[in-house]
């Protein structure tokens, strides 16, 4: 177990900057998820921590030891690859024991340790098989077993569940979370799936174009996204956005014409973006409506009702609004609905650069 610290870490391939100065501090025993769209540099960052990729500048510390000059094999880390990268010519037992063999363990110690891991991961009955004879989920468990063999300080996981089918993915997600609790190891987990990130992480690091957009707990990111990108990336269905302005009194004027006083932090006469999550839109009467529109589609799930609403005003790309109404709501296609944003805390305001406008401190959730 160990903490991980990154100080102004950068990576360039020729003139292309892939990672642009990342500062990050991961606490001992934490499960941190790197999430971001493809090409954001999350896997590169993971590989830089592992030592498989050299860094161009900056420092990486594991615990209190600087490691960026050390080869991967000397960093005392383990990694689970997206492809599992099991050794096809070795049995399950040999795969799990390989890191121990490299560390020069005796045969008997090695056997004892691999059996212990096999027991934890329920792999003992498969010990004599080769990877070819295993199912996807079993291979995944062997890959995790191999990573656990040396009791590494840090376990890195590079999209470990992306090759599994949906049901198995949920199971493995639970299993990984359980392992993390039991082992208490520091884990860094890379995924492009924000649901995986939300469900597993102690803290999430959102990356875009080699820059850390926000670091926080899943709920921090959900409740107070630092900028428009994070707001749009975290949450499913996605947050709705509207271009808006503040009037001379600092009130936010929605495309529908509704003006809402948000507080002193909103300056007068600025262009803004208003964001609201689908689940925070509620039905209201015509006069107080932040938006009005015609129902384009309805999905009744019982627990929720998903509505796609078409509003006639505003930017064309922002006219279609996703709404998630709790419970069963009797609406049908063509109905006219008036909606507002449930609570002032659920109005997300972003300035012209997409940076969150923070409400006064007493309203922070």
């Amino acid at each position, binding site marked *: 177990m160990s903490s991980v610290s990154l100080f102004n870490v950068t990576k360039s391939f020729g003139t292309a900057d892939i990672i642009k100065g990342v500062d990050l501090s991961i606490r001992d025993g934490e499960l941190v998820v790197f999430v971001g769209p493809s090409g954001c540099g999350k896997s590169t960052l993971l590989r830089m921590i*592992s*030592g*498989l990729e050299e860094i161009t500048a900056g420092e990486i510390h594991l615990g209190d030891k600087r490691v960026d000059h050390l*080869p*991967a*094999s000397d960093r005392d*880390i*383990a*990694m689970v*690859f*997206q*492809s599992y*990268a*099991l*050794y*096809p*010519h070795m049995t399950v037992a040999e795969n799990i024991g*390989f*890191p121990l063999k*490299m*560390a020069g363990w005796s045969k008997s110690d090695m056997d004892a340790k691999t059996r212990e891991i096999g027991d934890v991961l329920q792999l003992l009955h498969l010990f004599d098989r080769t990877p070819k004879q295993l199912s996807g989920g079993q291979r995944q468990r062997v890959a995790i077993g*191999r990573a656990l*063999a*040396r009791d590494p300080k840090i376990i890195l996981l590079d999209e470990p569940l992306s090759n599994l089918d949906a049901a198995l993915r949920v199971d493995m997600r639970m299993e990984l979370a359980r392992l993390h609790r039991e082992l208490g190891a520091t884990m860094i987990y890379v995924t492009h799936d924000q649901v995986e990130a939300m469900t597993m992480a102690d803290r999430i690091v959102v990356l875009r174009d080699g820059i850390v957009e926000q670091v926080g707990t899943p709920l921090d990111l959900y409740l107070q996204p630092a900028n428009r990108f994070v707001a749009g990336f975290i949450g499913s269905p996605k947050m709705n956005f509207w271009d808006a302005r503040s009037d001379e009194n600092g009130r936010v004027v929605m495309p529908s014409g509704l003006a809402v006083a948000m507080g002193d932090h909103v300056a007068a006469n600025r262009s803004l973006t208003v964001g609201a999550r689908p689940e925070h839109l509620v039905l209201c009467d015509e006069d107080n409506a932040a938006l009005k529109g015609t129902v384009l589609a309805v999905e009744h799930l019982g627990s929720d009702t998903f509505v796609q609403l078409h509003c006639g005003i505003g930017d064309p790309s922002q006219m279609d609004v996703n709404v998630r109404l709790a419970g069963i709501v009797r609406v049908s296609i063509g109905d006219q609905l008036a909606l507002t944003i449930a609570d002032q805390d659920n109005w997300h305001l972003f300035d012209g650069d997409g940076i969150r406008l923070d409400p006064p401190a007493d309203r922070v959730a």
Partner: protein
Amino acid sequence: MKASLTKKICIYLGALVLATVIAVPVLWLFIMSISSSTHLTTLPLQWWPDAPTFENYRNLLVFAENSPSASFLYGIRNSIIIAFAATGLSIIAAIPAAYSFSRLPGPRRKNLLYAVIAIFMLPPVAIVLPLYTVMSALGLLNTHFALIIVYCSILLPFTTWLLKSNFDTIPGDLDEAPIIDGANRLQAIWYVILPIARPALGAAVMMAVLLAWDEFFYGLLFTNDIRAKTITVAIADLAAGRVADYGLISAAGILAAVPPVILAFFMQKTLVSGLASGSVKG
């Protein structure tokens, strides 16, 4: 899939033609080797000798000074030493070279790879004279060592390319996983890459041995007596006398094929899967 009868017939016919083309010369060689010289020169030709004899084999295998058998047996010995030593050295050098070409980055590395193949394409005649001068100056003519060095220069590009194209098919994660697991680069090659590439390695060894075994040109020029003459040169010598004894030459041909055949027999399984995987993955 159910093949139609016509298709089946065509396939078997094709296989038969191929087998005949390959097998008939060998069969003919064998018939010649068990025929007496008189029988071989009588007209009309007979398909099968009246009195098959293994006299030719005895003449080659029972050692006697200054006889064809001395030349032949030394030739076999020299060929085995030279072919296996050259193959061994080439493979030892080709493994890291192929790995480096396949895995490590850099445009200059790629250029080197094409330089290697360009040199491989050079006809031996083009370099044999300077090579001869060098070998002569170093006092290496008529030694095993000279031929081992020269054969390495032929085998190394060939085995490097063969292994490189096989290493290319092994996913990169399988290099990185052992390194994460605490292995150094050489251990990663030894414990992971080579076992996976075993079929290709087998094929490379086999082809390299055959190439070296069959080589004639350098063998002819760089050796001059039984101390270093290879089997191909020894067989040619059998034909170079006043009267060519075709029966004896045929027997020598059959016997010269035995060591590679034994090798192929033991490596059969690896070899077939190696050649097959190469042909599928290109």
